[in-house]
């Protein structure tokens, strides 16, 4: 009985700080454990706690199945054509419904084992996640099922917010309202996933994708897109919570079928099969891989320091939301669509044999930001992507022997959310991403796919004297008074920062005013072609149509834009989503011409 009453009395006094006077007023008893950045290797020694250790390459890759067409009759209430620009012209042929729910997801079986009972599931069943349903077997997943669409076949998607309300939701980050943006789609404003077009729990939002080439020009075809949440102020956290999925657009040229007899068809690897058998075998040869770097707490759930406005860095790389998985591949060509799902990590991805991690292997790059290049970039030994960038690559595994193990490693050093340091990781500091295990092809199977010498021409850019006559605008990405700003301003949805006329063309300049940070700068609706990057004409993979200009420190990029087909509200923003959520976004409108 150590004078319990006296003890309590003393502590009662202690809780009234005024009695301290000046003497112990500086008594700082506990310092914050959540600090800012990682150690120099970009992986460990960080001030945010490390994720629990897990075994790399011990679980199969998840490949999302194709979104399942439910037919127009299934929608109740039916489609209201008056809500969508040009609906009558592009009446929906493919109709999908997706329900967004909270549940558990296996990022890694060893993390599952740490998880408590949550979201109605018993302990040990998975990490907390927000997911999409609508796949062939109906199970919710992250990434959500892949939207596979074809030009000329308009798509309609109704997305239901079935998340719990903010009072009840288990996910500790993000906000349970959704606005789903189909990244880079040429889509009317009301279907774009504009940040203010959010649906709260119990509501749905409708997206009409016309599947119409910009300016009806097949050279404007898009191929690798992704859908992700774009809720105002909560994009980074809602996507981190699980709200991302892939979309593939095909047409007669990039038809998805390597055996296509159409003489125009490119016959790139692919057989229109999507998904996997659950044991590390893909059903198809055209495989989307989205990278998200995630940090997990001791309970196996994703963690996130919302107070670090520089950006978020995870210490485990996930591919299709599986930590460091493996994939069995056959001795043939594959098309991989590689996405940087963010929120803040930049990658330089290289290919190495596990048995010889010092010799970089080569592959072909065929697309930048999801758009086919004019010709393949052959013999690349690494590919650099920033948040929301996509690159399609072809890896030919026939050069390897059955049993060979091939890894994708990340070589880019990054120690905080601001951007990469510019240095390369070496040796064992390189981050493990994905392992391929090479197998013989099936008996009698042939690889008819090719990587043709020419892919898709770029739309014409007018001559310099015409460009000089166009409206020029500059967008400066900066950091001011603790705020991420564009042209000194921060997101205000009632302010229109540019209003190009429908049918017009303009020259835009994106300028990074920072000397130590990177900004992947993204413009909705239209994509552009690079005229100059730091004063130089683009070559190689930069000679492309792009929707995310990944600006390094002090970079200046001049691009050519055209604005056509739809009118309404769009945004320009930094796709380091943490910067975006801290107001590095502006509204711009296309107005009737």
């Amino acid at each position, binding site marked *: 009985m150590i004078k319990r009453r006296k*003890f*309590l009395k*003393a*502590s*009662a006094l*202690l*809780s009234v*700080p*005024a009695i*301290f006077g000046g*003497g*112990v*007023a*500086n*008594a*700082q*008893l*506990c*310092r*914050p*454990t*959540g*600090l*800012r950045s990682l150690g120099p290797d970009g992986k460990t020694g960080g001030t945010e706690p490390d994720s629990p250790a897990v075994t790399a390459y011990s679980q199969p890759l998840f490949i999302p199945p194709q979104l399942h067409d439910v037919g127009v009759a299934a929608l109740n209430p039916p489609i209201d054509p008056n809500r969508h620009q040009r609906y009558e012209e592009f009446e929906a042929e493919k109709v999908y419904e997706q329900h967004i729910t909270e549940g558990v997801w296996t990022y890694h079986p060893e993390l599952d084992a740490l998880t408590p009972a949550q979201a109605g599931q018993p302990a040990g069943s998975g990490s907390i996640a927000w997911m999409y349903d609508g796949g062939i077997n109906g199970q919710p997943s992250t990434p959500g099922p892949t939207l596979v669409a074809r030009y000329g076949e308009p798509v309609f998607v109704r997305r239901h917010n079935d998340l719990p309300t*903010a*009072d009840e939701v288990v996910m*500790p*980050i993000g*906000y349970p*309202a959704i606005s789903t943006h189909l990244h880079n789609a040429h889509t009317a*404003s*009301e279907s774009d996933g*504009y940040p*203010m*077009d*959010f649906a*709260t729990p119990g509501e749905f939002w409708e997206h009409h994708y016309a599947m119409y080439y910009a300016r009806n020009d097949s050279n404007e075809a898009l191929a690798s897109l992704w859908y992700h949440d774009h809720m105002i*102020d*909560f994009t980074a956290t809602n996507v981190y919570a699980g709200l991302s999925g892939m979309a593939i657009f095909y047409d007669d040229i990039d038809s998805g079928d390597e055996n296509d007899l159409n003489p125009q068809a490119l016959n790139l690897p692919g057989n229109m099969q999507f998904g996997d058998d659950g044991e590390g075998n893909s059903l198809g040869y055209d495989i989307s891989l989205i990278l998200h770097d995630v940090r997990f707490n001791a309970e196996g759930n994703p963690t996130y*320091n*919302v*107070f*670090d*406005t*520089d950006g978020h860095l995870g210490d485990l790389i996930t591919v299709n939301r599986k930590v460091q998985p493996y994939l069995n591949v056959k001795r043939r060509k594959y098309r991989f669509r590689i996405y940087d799902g963010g929120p803040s990590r930049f990658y330089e991805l290289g290919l190495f044999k596990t048995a010889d991690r010092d010799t970089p292997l080569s592959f072909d790059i065929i697309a930048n930001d999801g758009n086919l290049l004019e010709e393949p970039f052959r013999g690349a030994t690494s590919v650099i992507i920033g948040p929301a960038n996509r690159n399609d690559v072809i890896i030919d595994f026939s050069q390897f022997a059955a049993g060979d193990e091939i890894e994708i490693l990340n070589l880019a050093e990054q120690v905080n959310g601001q951007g990469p340091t510019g240095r390369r990781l070496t040796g064992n500091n390189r981050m493990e991403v994905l392992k391929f295990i090479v197998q013989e092809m099936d008996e009698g199977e042939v690889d008819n796919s090719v990587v043709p010498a020419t892919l898709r021409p770029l739309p014409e850019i007018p001559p310099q004297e015409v460009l000089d006559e166009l409206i020029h605008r500059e967008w400066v990405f900066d950091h*001011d*008074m*603790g*705020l991420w700003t564009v042209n000194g301003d*921060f997101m*205000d*949805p*009632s302010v229109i920062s540019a209003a190009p006329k429908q049918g017009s063309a303009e020259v835009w300049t994106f300028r990074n005013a920072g000397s130590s940070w990177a900004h992947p700068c993204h413009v909705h609706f239209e994509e552009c072609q690079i005229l100059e990057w730091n004063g130089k004409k683009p070559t190689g993979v930069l000679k492309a149509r792009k929707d995310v200009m990944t600006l390094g420190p002090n970079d200046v990029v001049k691009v050519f834009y055209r604005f056509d087909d739809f009118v*309404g*509200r769009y945004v320009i923003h930094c796709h380091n989503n943490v910067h975006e*959520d*801290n*107001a590095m976004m502006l509204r711009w409108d296309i107005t009737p011409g």
Partner: protein
Amino acid sequence: MNLRRKFITSLAVAVPSLVMTGVSARANSVLGKKSAFKDCPRGITGPTAHRFPQAIVTDQNKKKAWFYEELIHDKIVLVNFSSVRGEEHYPIVANMVKVQNMIGDRLGKDVFIYTISTDPYHDTPESLKELADAHGAKWQFLTGDPDDMRAILTGFGIRGKINGLSWVGNEKTGRWMTKASRQHPLYIAEAVARLSTGKHHKPFLVDMHSV
């Protein structure tokens, strides 16, 4: 009341040596080694408690409070950052007064606004009171020991003496977001309504959805 008792009891567990020795040389020597206290148990915890130090702050009326435990825990808060000198160069208080007026009766009941001094070397309760009164600000302006204030500011990711970021948080749910302090006050008030739970929750104040 129950919470308060819990707070008191757990504080007693947390800092017995301090209680037993009072304001003594020994306490000071222990406090000097701040790292020794890094993982000490907290009196009160909450979703983001680990981001903030256990520290005492003083408001413009010289009222002292434990920063997280008494000002943040279990509350809906709007936290902004300024100083008497910073306000001369980058004023935010006038805009926050407009937000205060929109929040109305909720201020001090379930919504709390704080301005945290970024310049505790110079900002005294007296000078902050002058600043608050000049604008008709009814919320608390907080200063304190510079090391403690730095630790609090670090928790919010605030560097430098002038910062244009406001944090809106609901520490009942642990959900936090930012708005620029010079954003239109309606959007800051909207953030408070959006993060509020229960009867005060509103997903938006102005409907800006596509029609």
